[in-house]
Every structure is written in structure tokens, then in C-alpha cells.
């Protein structure tokens, strides 16, 4: 398993729980879950590039 795969799995399952627990309607649960998933990925990519530029 690569680091990115681990990140995807983490983001996927955590987003499901966030969506269900933080919203009240099924539609808003799906939207919030998708937002969380995208946020996890975007944050990881931004932070990864940040670390790359710090090192180089």
C-alpha cells in the first residue's frame, strides 16, 4: 500500500462518518462528506508540495 492509498482510505472512511454525524439530511450528508473528502485530499497535496519545497 502506498502512502497516497493510505491517505485515500483514511479520507474516504473519515468523510463518511463526518457526513453522517455533522449533517441532518441525506442530501447534505453526501455533500458534506464529499466536501470533507476533497478537503482532505487538497490539504494533503498542498502540505506535501510545501514539504517538498522546504526540502529543496
Amino acid at each position, binding site marked *: 500500500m502506498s502512502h497516497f492509498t*493510505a491517505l485515500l*482510505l*483514511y479520507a474516504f*472512511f473519515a468523510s463518511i*462518518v463526518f457526513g*453522517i*454525524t455533522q449533517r441532518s439530511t441525506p442530501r447534505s450528508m453526501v455533500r458534506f462528506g464529499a466536501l470533507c473528502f476533497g478537503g482532505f485530499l487538497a490539504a494533503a497535496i498542498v502540505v506535501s508540495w510545501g514539504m517538498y519545497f522546504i526540502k529543496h
Partner: protein
Amino acid sequence: MATKAVIVPVKRTGLSPDLVLLAGWLVPGLGHVMIRKGIRGLLLFVSIVAMFAIGLLMHGKVYTPSTGDPLDILGFVGDAGAIGLWAVAKLGDLGATQLSDAFSDYGSKFIVVAGLLNVMAAVDAQSIANGRKLDR
């Protein structure tokens, strides 16, 4: 004189909210199943158990509170959020006792986060049961 509207929580089910909280803590998603939110309960069960299992497969550490190390105690607090899964892991002698590499460290975080997410899920079920969370 202006008056403020007061929202009074209304109990939504006949079940005790504390019982729902306890059930959700012991088994991921069971609290939601008890309040007749079966699909949500199933999704929560699959998500939390999958995170816990992936953590074990990555040779993550299952913490015990008796080592005297403050970080172990903190890790145990996270793990204990899903006390049923933690008990199964301990009884089945699953998981690592020492961190061996980066993935083992990631695995430990998966296990801790699974516990913390389970606390969120159990409290959510309790909030629906006692009417604090509007549910449609």
C-alpha cells in the same frame, strides 16, 4: 421586552439516550440501528471497522494504559473510543506492541482515529435519540 424563543429538546424515541450512547460505544453503528437509522448504522459500522482493520493490517499498535508512558495512555484513550473493537483486538492478540516503521505508525493513527470517530457516531445517535439533533 423582547422574548427569546427557547428550543426544548424532545425525546424522539422510546429508548434511553444513554443506552443508545452506550450501544454505539460498544459496537460501531449500533446506536443508529437502535434509533431505526439502519443504513447510517451500517455505513458507520463498515467505515469504523474498516479503519480499525486497516490499522491492524498496517501493524498498528493497539495501546494499553498500563505501560506508564503518557503517550501510551493518550493512545489508549483514542483506542477506547471503540471499546468493543479494542477488546476484540486485545483478546485476539491482534496489532503490534511496538512501532516498527512509518506504516506501523500510520496504522496506529488509523486505530486511534477509528476510536475517535466512533465517539462522534455514538454521540450523534444519542443526540438524535434525545432530540438535540434535528433529523429528517
